[in-house]
């Protein structure tokens, strides 16, 4: 019980810290750090998505960049068409571009969800190391598809000139944009908490621990896992849409397998199956990139060494170190 309380306190601290950084940056007029905080919030959101599949469902997806990237492309391509004044497609139905934020988010959720349903339906027939490799391979397929399709500049990607319109808010203001990302992040964590605590979550966590047990009591694991996989992908896809807006640019690099690895790193650094873990993981990652990257171009070398150390010697991640083992009572 004491550990539970400690984790709750820690979580509140983490959430407040992430909120404080851009506010301080805004107060002292260091606007660069507002963008950094938005990056952390967005990458953490991607991690929250993966955590649902990996941390709670035990599905080690090495292809979540596919959903991040698809969400990004869905938003990027529609806003590109809106800027150009052209249609996304004219047959069989007419779909115009859009500069409405909610439409872009909806498109990102829809596309990543539908593709995740297809990839998941095939990949979840397998388990263990096959699942890892297959999710990786499917993500590569989408990456190469994005590179080889000439319509949206292939490898070079698309610049986006304007942020989208969210009624009542001005997203081109960096601080406002951060608040929107932050709100979505907390919403996603709240949804994860509810889902994991629900009946569905109980079945999902049982599927992770012991699939035979779940079958033996009459719950087929496959639909449970597939549903979680799709939800997980949609959250990550939404993060992709925000990421593209933040950068004003969409290219196949947001589909690359390095990014899949990095999203996984956010989850592991923070602590697998800890709701606020991805925030810690993403923040650490960005801090390392910014701090070590300030001294040397070789910061990925140090990242590699640190990550190796965490995997070999500190298995619960940062939250595990600070708050003790996870509880499932």
């Amino acid at each position, binding site marked *: 019980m004491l550990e539970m309380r400690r984790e709750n306190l820690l979580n509140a601290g983490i959430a407040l810290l992430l909120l404080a950084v851009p506010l301080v940056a805004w107060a002292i007029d260091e606007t660069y750090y507002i963008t950094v905080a938005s990056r952390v919030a967005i990458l953490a959101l991607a991690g929250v998505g993966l955590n649902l599949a990996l941390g709670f469902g035990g599905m080690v997806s090495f292809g979540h960049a596919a959903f991040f990237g698809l969400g990004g492309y869905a938003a990027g391509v529609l806003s590109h068409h809106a800027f150009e004044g052209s249609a996304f497609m004219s047959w069989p139905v007419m779909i115009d571009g859009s500069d409405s934020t909610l439409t872009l988010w909806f498109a990102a959720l829809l596309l990543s969800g539908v593709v995740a349903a297809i990839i998941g339906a095939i990949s979840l027939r397998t388990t263990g190391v096959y699942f890892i490799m297959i999710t990786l391979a499917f993500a590569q397929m989408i990456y190469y598809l994005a590179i080889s399709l000439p319509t949206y500049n292939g490898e070079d990607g698309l610049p986006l000139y304007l942020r989208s319109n969210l009624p009542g808010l001005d997203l081109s203001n960096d601080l406002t944009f951060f608040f929107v990302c932050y709100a979505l992040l907390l919403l996603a964590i709240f949804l994860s908490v*509810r*889902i994991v*605590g*629900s*009946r*569905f*979550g*109980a*079945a999902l*966590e*049982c599927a992770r*621990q*012991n699939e*035979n*047990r*779940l*079958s*033996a*009591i*009459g*719950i*087929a694991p496959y*639909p*449970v896992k597939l*549903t979680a996989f799709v939800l997980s992908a949609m959250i990550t896809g939404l993060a992709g849409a925000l990421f593209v807006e933040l950068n004003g640019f969409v290219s196949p690099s947001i589909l690359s397998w390095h990014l899949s690895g990095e999203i996984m790193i956010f989850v592991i650094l923070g602590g697998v199956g800890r709701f606020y873990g991805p925030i810690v993981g993403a923040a650490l990652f960005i801090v390392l990139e910014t701090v070590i990257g300030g001294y040397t171009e070789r910061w990925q070398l140090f990242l590699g060494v640190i990550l190796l150390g965490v995997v070999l010697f500190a298995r619960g991640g940062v939250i595990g170190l600070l708050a003790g083992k*996870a509880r*499932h*009572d």
Partner: protein
Amino acid sequence: MTEPLLVLDGLHKSFGALRATDNVSLDLAPASIHALIGPNGAGKSTLIAQIAGSLKPTAGTVRFLGQDITALSVPKRAQLGLGRTFQVSSLAMAFSALRNVMLAVQARQHATFRFWRPVRVDRSLIDPSMAQLERVGLKERAHLPVTALSHGERRQLELAVALALEPKVLLLDEPMAGLGGEDSLRMTEVLTGLRQDVAMLLVEHDMDAVFRLADKISVLVYGRVIASGSVEDIRASQEVRDAYLGE
């Protein structure tokens, strides 16, 4: 004479040249305990796996409540009312005892795809689960994680989970295995108390327990049923003595 609940008809299972199950036919009457005995490697667990659905037989049929279930998956069979316990305890290890049972109650209610309401405060899951835990004598231990339970308690929990499904038939794969004298006695009592509600197919090495519980015994050797009959028949059978009891 009432219809048997479970009927195996000419089951065969081969792994390459090895015949793990060789033309096994048996049935299980309502409110009865049918014990399956035999030496190690006789194919008892393989047979249980075919009834529960985790292994597909090479030939033959499994009928349950008059329905051919040979092609059904494990979850489908469980939903029809075929419960089981595993030879080696197979539970959600990170969950508490209570949550293991709650999951079974939820499965029984066919209400898994609900995403919002926390199970933690769901009386419709907690109350029936506590009742099952009490039935097997684990009420005091409900909130402990499975990892903190003793071996014997895990066997009791397995049974509570299976009972929470309100099964018509229970497949019990060595429920006494590894239990000390007291735990074993307690398990025998619990099973005796259940007999009126649920028919059981019991795989067990503990012959005292088998002779005390079973209405009918079948002896499996090298995948074949070499004898089947009442406790007295089996005790008296020279063939069974030679093949198994006499060893």
